[in-house]
C-alpha cells in the first residue's frame, strides 16, 4: 500500500486519498498505535478503491488486503490485540502487460502519463533510465509492448512507439535534455575500467549504464562509427544517421571513449584487454556475416551476388558519401525478415528497375514487421511467396538469374506450425543482375579464437548464462546478436543493461547477485498471472494516430526519412488512449529478500 500511495498518479479521488488513508491506518495498527480508522472503515475504503478507481493501480492495489480482511479477520484482530508487529518481509511489484512484454521493461504507462501531464522531458527521462537510444527505438522498435497492449480489446493498441519517438524528437537539437558528468553520482577510481567490444545497441547501452555507475568505459569498434547494426543494418529512410549519432554521442558526453577501427581477432584479443587493465569485458560484436543460401552453384565472390548485410553496408557507405554504388536492372532479394525488407526498399532507392522478394513460406509467416511489408508493396516491390531458390545461374562471369522452385505447405506438425516442401517440376529461372541473400547472419568468423577461451553454443553464437550473460570465461560477459543470433534492437539494449549490472556486481563482489525483481517476473510468468484479460466494461473507441508519411511514389527514390513525427496535439490525444493497466503483486517471504547488488 505504501508503494501504491507513492505511485498513485493522484488524479482520481479514491486512489489518491484511499491509498494514503489505508496506508496510514495499517501502519498505525502494525506499530500498535491507535489507528485513525477501524477495520470496517479500512475495508470500506479498500472496497471503494477497488470498485471505483480509474485505472489498474487503484483497482488492484487493495485486492490482497480485502481478501485478507475477509478470510482472516480473526487472525488480524488477534494480531492487533497483541500490539506492535514486526515488519513483514516481502516484495511488492507493480507492473503492466506492456512493461512485462518489453525486453527492457520500460515503464510504458508512466512515460505515456508524463506526456498527458504535459511533461515530455519526464517522459523521455523514464526511457533514459533504461537505455540512451530513445529516438532510435522510437523509429525502429518491433513493439512487443503494443502487442501486449490491452487497448486492442477496445479498438487498437496505443501508439507506444509513436509516442516514444515524439518525446525523443521533441527533446532534440537545442531543446535536448543535457547529459553531463554531473549525472554520475559516484565516480570510481581510474583503475575501474571496462572494455566494451562493439558499438552497437547492446554495447552502447551497456557502456551507458556502466558510465552512470562511475566506471571508465572504452568501446572498441571495428567500423569507423558507432551504431552497429542500427547504423549499417537500418537504412536512412527509417533511421536518419544524425538521429542515431546524437544518441551515441551521449556516451562521449558521459566521459566514455569510442576507439574506432579496432576489430576483435584482427587488432586485439580478449587476453590483450585484460592485460591492458580492463577489469571486465562485454562482448557485443553482433552477427555481421551473411549466411549463404546453400544452393547449387553458389559462389559469393561472383559479381552480382551480395549478402543482405553486405548490401546494407554498401548502401550505408553510399548514403554516407563514402563510396558511390549504383544498381540497375532486376534485383532479387531472398528472405522474409526485416533485413530482407530493408534490402528490397534500399535497392529501389539505389536505382533498381524492379525488385523481387523471394520467400519460401507465406506472407503470414514472414518474420518482418507487417508495416515494413506493406510499405515495400506500396513502393512497388514484387513478392513471390512459397518460392525458394534452388540454383544460381551465371553467364559471362556474373549472375544472370536464379532458378526457383514452387513450394507447398505441409500438414501442421505437433506445434501447429506448417512446414514447406518443394513442388517437383515447378522449377523456373528468374532473370536478375543482382541477387541479395538475406536469410540470416552469424558471428564473423575469426573474431574469437580458441585462445580467447570463449565457448560457442550449437547455433554458433557465444554461449552465455541467460540469467547474468556471463560467458565461459570469468569476467567476460556477452549480449546482443552475438549471443542470441540476429535479434531486435530492444533485446540488444536490454542485454546491455543486464550486462552492466552483472559487470558491476562482478567487479565489486566477484560474483553476480540475486535480482529480486527478475525473480518476481519469473513467478508472474510461470503462473501466467498477467494473461491478457479482456476489458470488462465498455470504453469509448478512439482510434490511434498515424505518422504522417511521404508519398510512396516520391519516397521510393530517396533516402530521406519516410515517417514524420506527430504533432503535440496528436501526442496528447494518443496519450489519453492509454488505460494504465497497472497491476500490483506482492509476495510475503519468511526471510528478508537480499537486495540486488548486495
Amino acid at each position, binding site marked *: 500500500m505504501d508503494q501504491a500511495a507513492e505511485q498513485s498518479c493522484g488524479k482520481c479521488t479514491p486512489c489518491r486519498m484511499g491509498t494514503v488513508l489505508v496506508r496510514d491506518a495499517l501502519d498505525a495498527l502494525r506499530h500498535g498505535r491507535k489507528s485513525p480508522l477501524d477495520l470496517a472503515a479500512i475495508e470500506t475504503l479498500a472496497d*471503494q478503491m477497488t470498485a471505483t478507481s480509474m485505472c489498474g493501480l487503484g483497482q488492484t492495489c487493495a485486492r490482497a488486503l480485502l481478501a485478507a480482511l475477509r478470510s482472516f479477520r480473526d487472525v488480524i484482530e488477534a494480531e492487533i490485540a497483541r500490539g506492535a508487529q514486526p515488519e513483514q518481509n516481502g516484495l511488492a511489484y507493480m507492473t503492466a502487460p506492456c512493461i512485462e512484454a518489453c525486453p527492457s521493461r520500460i515503464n510504458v504507462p508512466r512515460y505515456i502519463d508524463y506526456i498527458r*501531464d504535459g511533461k515530455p522531458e519526464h517522459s523521455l527521462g523514464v526511457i533514459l533510465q533504461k537505455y540512451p537510444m530513445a529516438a532510435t527505438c522510437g523509429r525502429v522498435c518491433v513493439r512487443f509492448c503494443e502487442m501486449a497492449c490491452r487497448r486492442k480489446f477496445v479498438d487498437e493498441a496505443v501508439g507506444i512507439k509513436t509516442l516514444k519517438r515524439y518525446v525523443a524528437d521533441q527533446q532534440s537539437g537545442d531543446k535536448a535534455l*543535457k547529459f553531463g558528468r554531473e549525472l554520475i553520482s559516484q565516480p570510481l577510481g581510474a583503475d575501474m575500467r571496462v572494455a566494451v567490444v562493439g558499438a552497437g545497441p547492446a554495447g552502447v547501452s551497456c557502456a551507458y549504464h556502466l558510465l552512470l555507475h562511475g566506471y571508465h568505459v572504452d568501446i572498441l569498434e571495428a567500423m569507423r562509427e558507432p551504431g552497429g547494426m542500427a547504423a549499417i543494418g537500418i537504412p536512412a529512410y527509417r533511421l536518419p544517421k544524425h538521429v542515431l549519432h546524437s544518441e551515441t554521442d551521449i556516451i562521449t558526453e558521459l566521459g566514455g571513449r569510442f576507439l574506432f577501427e579496432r576489430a576483435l581477432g584482427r587488432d586485439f584479443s580478449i587476453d590483450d584487454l585484460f592485460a591492458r587493465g580492463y577489469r571486465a569485458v562485454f562482448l557485443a560484436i553482433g552477427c555481421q556475416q551473411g549466411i549463404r543460401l546453400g544452393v547449387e552453384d553458389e559462389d559469393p565472390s561472383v559479381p552480382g551476388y551480395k549478402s543482405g548485410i553486405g548490401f546494407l553496408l554498401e548502401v550505408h557507405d553510399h548514403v554516407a558519401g563514402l563510396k558511390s554504388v549504383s544498381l540497375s536492372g532486376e534485383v532479387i532479394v531472398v528472405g522474409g525478415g526485416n533485413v530482407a525488407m530493408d534490402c528490397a526498399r534500399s535497392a529501389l532507392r539505389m536505382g533498381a528497375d524492379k525488385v523481387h522478394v523471394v520467400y519460401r513460406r507465406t506472407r503470414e509467416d514472414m518474420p518482418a514487421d507487417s508495416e515494413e511489408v506493406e510499405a515495400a508493396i506500396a513502393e512497388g516491390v514484387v513478392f513471390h511467396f512459397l518460392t525458394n531458390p534452388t540454383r544460381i545461374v551465371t553467364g559471362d562471369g556474373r549472375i544472370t538469374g536464379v532458378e526457383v522452385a514452387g513450394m507447398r505447405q505441409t500438414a501442421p506438425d505437433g506445434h501447429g506450425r506448417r512446414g514447406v516442401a518443394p513442388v517437383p517440376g515447378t522449377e523456373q529461372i528468374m532473370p536478375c543482375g543482382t541477387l541479395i541473400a538475406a536469410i540470416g547472419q552469424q558471428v564473423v568468423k575469426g573474431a574469437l579464437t580458441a585462445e580467447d577461451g570463449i565457448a560457442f553454443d550449437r547455433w554458433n553464437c557465444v554461449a552465455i548464462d541467460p540469467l547474468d550473460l556471463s560467458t565461459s570465461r570469468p569476467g567476460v560477459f556477452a549480449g546482443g546478436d552475438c549471443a542470441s543470433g540476429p535479434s531486435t534492437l530492444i533485446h540488444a539494449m536490454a542485454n546491455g543493461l543486464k550486462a552492466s549490472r552483472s559487470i558491476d556486481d562482478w567487479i565489486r563482489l566477484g560474483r553476480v547477485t540475486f535480482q529480486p525483481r527478475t525473480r518476481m517476473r519469473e513467478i508472474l510468468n510461470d503462473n501466467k498471472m498477467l494473461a491478457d484479460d479482456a476489458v470488462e466494461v*465498455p470504453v469509448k473507441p478512439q482510434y490511434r494516430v498515424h505518422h504522417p508519411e511521404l508519398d510512396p511514389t516520391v519516397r521510393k527514390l530517396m533516402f530521406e526519412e519516410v515517417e514524420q513525427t506527430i504533432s503535440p496535439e496528436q501526442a496528447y490525444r494518443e496519450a489519453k488512449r492509454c488505460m494504465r493497466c497497472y497491476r500490483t503483486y506482492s509476495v510475503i517471504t519468511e526471510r528478508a529478500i537480499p537486495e540486488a547488488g548486495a
Partner: protein
Amino acid sequence: MDALDTTAPGATELTATINGKTVAGRAGETILDCARRHGVYIPTLCELHDIDHAPGTCRVCLVEIKMKHADKTHLVASCTTPMQDGLAIDTRTPELREMQRLQVELLLADHDQDCATCIRHGKCDLQDVAQFVGLRQNRFFDPARVAARPVDESSPALIRNMKRCIRCQRCIAICRDGQGVDALIQINSGLDTAVGLRHGLTQKNSACVTCGQCVLVCPTGALGERDETDRALEMMYDPELITVVQFAPAVRVGFGEEFGLPPGTNVEGQIITALRMLGASIVLDTNWGADLVIMEEGTELLHRLKERKRPTFSSCCPAWINFVERHYPDIMPMLSSTKSPQQCVGALAKTYLPEKMGIDPARIRVISIMPCIAKKDEIVRRQLIHDGVPEVDVVLSTREFARLLQRERIDLKSLEPSTFDNPYMSEYSGAGAIFGTTGGVMEAALRTMYYVVNGRELEHIEIEQLRGFEGVRTATVELGGDIGAVKIAMCHGLKPTRQIVEEVRSGKSDLDFVEIMACPGGCVDGGGTLRSKKAYLPYALKRRETLFGIDKNRPVRQSHRNAQVQALYRDYLGAPNSEKAHHLLHTYYTDRKIEMTQTVREVWADIKMIGKVY
C-alpha cells in the same frame, strides 16, 4: 468489436434502460450524456460538457451497469463510459449513493476547508456536489495534508492556490486544447498532485499569458484573480484622493445576471449610479478611450499601409501582448504601438483631465473595471509607469466589482440608472461600444479609416461580413482612395491566433490588418467576467447582441465624430499621431520569450517510479 460511428452521435439508435425505464441511446454518446437527455440527474464534478472535458478523475458520477447477457454488474464513471445496446443502468441504488458520498468525503480529506475565506465561497461546485450527494460527515480531513501545497501569488493578475485544487484538470484542458497556450502541466504525484507551470516556473515568469480562461472553468477557488477590492475601497474612501473610475465596453453587458437580471442586460446606467454611491469622484467611460484608440491606431495603420508594411496587429488586448512577448517576440514590430483604451484613459486622466478640471494630478487615482485579469498585468508594465506613477492604479475584474457591491450591500437591480456627466472623457460612439466583442475593433477602425481616405462616411456601417463567430474570419474591404482593397482578419481565442501568427511568420499570409482578442468571443467573455457553474461562455452571444444594439442606438456611430474626442485633439493633442499623442498614447514592447533547457539529472530527480535505475 463493432465499428462505432462516433463522429455522428444520433446516427445509430440503441435501446437501454436507466433505473428500469427504457431509453433510446445514441451510439458514441456517454451514459452521462444519455442520462442528461432523459432528465436523469447524476452528480458530476470534474466533467465540463461545454469544453468536451471528461477526464473521469473525480469518480463522483458513478453508475451501476449490467451489460446484455452479463450476469454481473459493474460500477463505472458515467462521464467516460459509452452507451451500449441492452445496457441496464442504475443511478440510484443505496450502495451507489453511499459510494458517491464517500467519494466526496475523500475529496474533502485533503481540501482546504476554510470556505469562508475562499474567493469562490457560495459559488463553488465542490460545495454544491457535497450537498447533492448528501454529505453528512467529514471524517478524514487533516489540515496537515494541505499545509505544504503550493500557493502561487507571484502574478499581479492570477492566484493559483493548490490547497483548493480537486485535480479536475479543466484548467489544463482549456489552456492546452482551448487556448493552445499549453502553459499548465500536472506536477508531482500521489497526494501531492497539483497543477503547475511548465519547467517549474512561477506564474509571473511562465509561459502563461493570464488570459484567465482557466479561472472561468475552475470549479473551486483554486484559481482566481488577485483580489484588489480593498485597495479600491481605500482609495474611494480617502477624502484626500480624487478617484477616477472607468469601466470597459463589455462590463455593462456582462454584469446584470449577478443581480438577477437577464443575461446580456445593459446596466450601464446602474453601474454609474453604483459607482457614485461607492464614492467614486469622477466616472469615465473606457468606450471613450476606444474611440480615441481608433483615431490613433487607424492613423498609424494608414501610414503603414502607405509604407507597404504589413500586416499590422491590433494591440488593445493585454493577454495578446503577453502572448506575443512570451511566445512570438519576432512579430513585435508588427504590433500597433497604440496603447489600449484603458491605458489611454488612464494616461489622459492624469494629464488632460486635471488640466481641464483644474485639479492637482497627484491627488488622482484611476481605477478601472474590466472583464479581464490580464489588465492587472498591463498596469504594472514598466512602460506604463512614469516616475513611479502608474497610468492606472487599480484594475478590478467584473467579479471583484460584483464583490465590491455585495460588500457595500448595493443591489444593482433596484438602482435608478444615471448618465455620465464628465464633459471631457465619457462620451462615446457606437464604434467604441462594439470594442468589447470580436470584430468590433476592426469594424470601428474601418468606419473611421474609410472616412479618412475618402472624406465621406461609409454607407453601410454595419459590416455584416465581419460579424461572424468563427475563430478566424478574413475579408477584403475596399477602402478606396490611394489605399484600395485591404485584406483583414479577426481572431478570437489564442488557438486560432497561433494559427494566424504562424502563417504570417511563414510568409504565407497577405493580410494587412489583424484584430486579435485572446479570449474566445472577445472581452464579453474575458477571463475577468462572472463565472458560470457547469458551463463555459454560456452568454457570449447575448452579450454581443446587446453591444450591437447599443451601437445601433447611438446618435454618433463613428469614432471620429465623437465630439469629446474631437475636442481633445483640438484643445490638447493637435492631431492623431502628433508628437504629444505619441508621448501619451503609444508604447513599445519587450522580448520576454522563455528558453529553457533541462538536464537529465533534474528530470531524474523529479521522476517517481518503481524500477528506477538511478
